[in-house]
């Protein structure tokens, strides 16, 4: 079964600094990868997704992510973090080992982002 790893449980950055959140996936075939953000007490909001094609994908709120097959990674980046970006971020994979993929998501453990003024 596929798994998704987010090595960093908690990251703290200063406002205006750049950000990179790490994500590694285990499944060998072409993955369907996502980044979601969850603010306290809120549901999950989709930031961006990768299915195929250009390995650098742009998302909402100024976020981007790069798919690197050789490293089995799909890291999320933002050039300049805003205080409102403080939230928990989840990487997810919807690929399937066989049969029909229904799009069910396998999530990483999440990375909590704290932004210092």
């Amino acid at each position: 079964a596929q798994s998704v790893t987010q090595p960093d449980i908690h990251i703290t950055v200063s406002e205006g600094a750049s950000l990179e959140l790490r994500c590694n996936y285990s499944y060998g075939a072409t993955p369907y990868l996502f980044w979601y953000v969850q603010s306290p007490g809120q549901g999950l909001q989709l930031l961006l997704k990768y299915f195929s094609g250009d390995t650098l994908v742009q998302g909402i709120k100024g976020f981007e992510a790069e798919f690197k097959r050789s490293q089995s990674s799909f890291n999320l980046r933002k050039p300049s973090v805003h205080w409102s970006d403080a939230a928990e971020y989840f990487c997810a994979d919807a690929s399937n080992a066989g049969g029909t993929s229904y799009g069910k998501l396998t999530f990483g453990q999440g990375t909590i982002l704290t932004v210092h003024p």
Partner: protein
Amino acid sequence: GAGVSQSPSNKVTEKGKDVELRCDPISGHTALYWYRQSLGQGLEFLIYFQGNSAPDKSGLPSDRFSAERTGGSVSTLTIQRTQQEDSAVYLCASSDTIPSYEQYFGPGTRLTVT
């Protein structure tokens, strides 16, 4: 338009009681998912509906958990004889594509079993 809604937003119940959690997906969305978010287990898939059918129930943790969907719309997740380990946030998501690769999530129901 209206997003995915869930009710109640919070539910406190005593161990051994049954609970029902409701999800109203976005109108016209044929796919519906239930996930559970807990401190120990993170975010886990529970069940997937396409229309009123559930082709994938592989994430339901025990036979105390069941779900149904009626009219291709509202879904109810039922937990019988609740246990403390059932305490979690239960999230519902819906999608209008097949396969469903862009899911819209509701705010969740926080279940606390005392």
